[in-house]
């Protein structure tokens, strides 16, 4: 295996509505930022891989517009995933493993504000049994939350504490959309919006973008003094039908964690892509994280959840804290699909762990 590191990370200031800028204008500043930080231009990027979705952009092959912004002439080696850009990062990592690239630019963006996100997300469901019923993303998460409450996996009090802790942590994150929170006891006095979920249990709807640069071995050390080395990365998927899954557990996360070596050494910090409060409990359990692990110091997806970029940002936030020395070993997690259907786990270590 080649050693591959995150050498740069940038994200947008996440907002509810990015009205004045289109997707290209939203993503270009973060691309410029990572390249400027490293002192490189597109000609020094061996492979470019993006995540975006036509269902948000409202047109077919919408990623080509952003690719034009990146600069695809003279021709570049590139690829695209119609899913969270954490999976674009996985593809770039594989590309570097093959030896076909030493550096890769990965980016993702989601502008959810032009449409009704809850309706749009229902279109990712099985078109025979689920799609015709238009079940929305919050309703499905609420089914999972109920199963967790019934099964004793969590409590509404713990869920409110997760919401408050996340949004208070986000007060130190200048890119977060929601910062600060009432006390959990106050949150619990609010009415349920999709019982058993209250508003605080749900992620905000966000417009935003993020970019990461990966580099292999000595090229990573040339580009930065503090690479965040990817020591393990794996992603797994479960059955699509919610009715065949045990919604209170995440076997795909547990398997990805085992394959990426999460338990091989102590974890100090975790950035988890658990958009709904109860999902943090499921993911934390599946990863086997103890109570001493700092979870989502950025505020996580409960403080800003740009679709498609949200998972990549977890890797970026974990890498940033590894590079700064705040954590020696960190775990990042990304999810995709309804009720944590698909999950990616990435283990990052600083140079001292090398």
């Amino acid at each position: 295996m080649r050693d591959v590191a995150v050498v740069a990370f940038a994200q947008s200031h996440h907002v509810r509505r990015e009205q004045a800028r289109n997707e290209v204008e939203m993503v270009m500043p973060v691309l410029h930022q990572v390249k400027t930080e490293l002192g490189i231009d597109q000609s020094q990027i061996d492979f470019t891989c993006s995540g975006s979705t036509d269902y948000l952009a409202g047109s077919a092959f919408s990623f080509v517009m952003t690719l034009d912004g990146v600069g695809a002439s003279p021709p570049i080696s590139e690829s695209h995933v119609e899913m969270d850009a954490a999976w674009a990062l996985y593809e770039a990592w594989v590309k570097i493993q093959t030896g076909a690239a030493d550096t890769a630019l990965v980016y993702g963006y989601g502008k959810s504000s032009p449409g009704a996100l809850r309706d749009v997300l229902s279109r990712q469901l099985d078109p025979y049994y689920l799609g015709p019923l238009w079940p929305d993303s919050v309703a499905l998460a609420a089914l999972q939350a109920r199963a967790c409450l019934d099964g004793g996996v969590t409590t509404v009090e713990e869920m409110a504490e997760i919401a408050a802790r996340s949004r208070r942590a986000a007060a130190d994150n200048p890119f977060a959309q929601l910062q600060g929170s009432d006390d959990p006891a106050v949150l619990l006095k609010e009415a349920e919006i999709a019982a058993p979920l209250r508003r605080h249990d749900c992620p905000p709807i966000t417009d935003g973008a993020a970019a990461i640069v990966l580099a292999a071995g000595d090229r990573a050390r040339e580009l930065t003094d503090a690479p965040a080395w990817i020591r393990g990365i794996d992603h797994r998927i479960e059955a699509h039908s919610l009715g065949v899954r045990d919604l209170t557990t995440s076997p795909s996360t547990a398997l990805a964690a085992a394959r990426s070596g999460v338990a091989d050494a102590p974890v100090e910090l975790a950035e988890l892509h658990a958009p709904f409060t109860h999902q943090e409990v499921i993911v934390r359990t599946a990863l086997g994280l103890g109570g001493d692990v700092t979870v989502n110091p950025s505020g996580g997806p409960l403080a800003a959840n740009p679709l498609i970029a949200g998972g990549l940002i977890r890797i970026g936030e974990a890498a940033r804290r590894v590079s700064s020395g705040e954590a020696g070993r960190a775990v990042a997690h990304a999810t995709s699909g309804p009720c944590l259907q698909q999950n990616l786990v990435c283990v990052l270590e600083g140079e001292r762990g090398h």
Partner: protein
Amino acid sequence: MSEAEILSAPLVLEYPFKRTVGPVQSAFLTGLREGMVLGVRAEDGRVLCPPVEYDPVTSAELTELVELPATGRVTTWSWEPAPRAGQPLDHPFAWALVQIDGADTGLLHALDAGSPDEVTTGMRVRVRWNDEREGAITDIACFEPAGDEEGGQ
């Protein structure tokens, strides 16, 4: 740029795909049209409803269809206080995963229960059929509470 200067126009996005549904899903959907609920037997003997063409554990092709009653019990649910366009009911309802009697997995649909106080995990429900059926999941109008009716458990 101030908000007043931002131009916008409506855009209705459609993905008008037509699909074939294959031997198992076709049988299930045709069954619904006839007012019948079908499941499929998985390799481990479990009955999956709604049925799928491939075993979710082993990926083996599944072919043994099983006729099931139009009753079951709620395994988990959430409350929809403000139904959205296209959803099964236009007044508040519960989303529920319903384990059809004789099946081992859940089917997602609406439960017309009046209020969240009327819904409990484990409650018994029965299918309310649409009068006009066309071979679609929406041939089930929704589920409704079935009180203490005998179940298949």
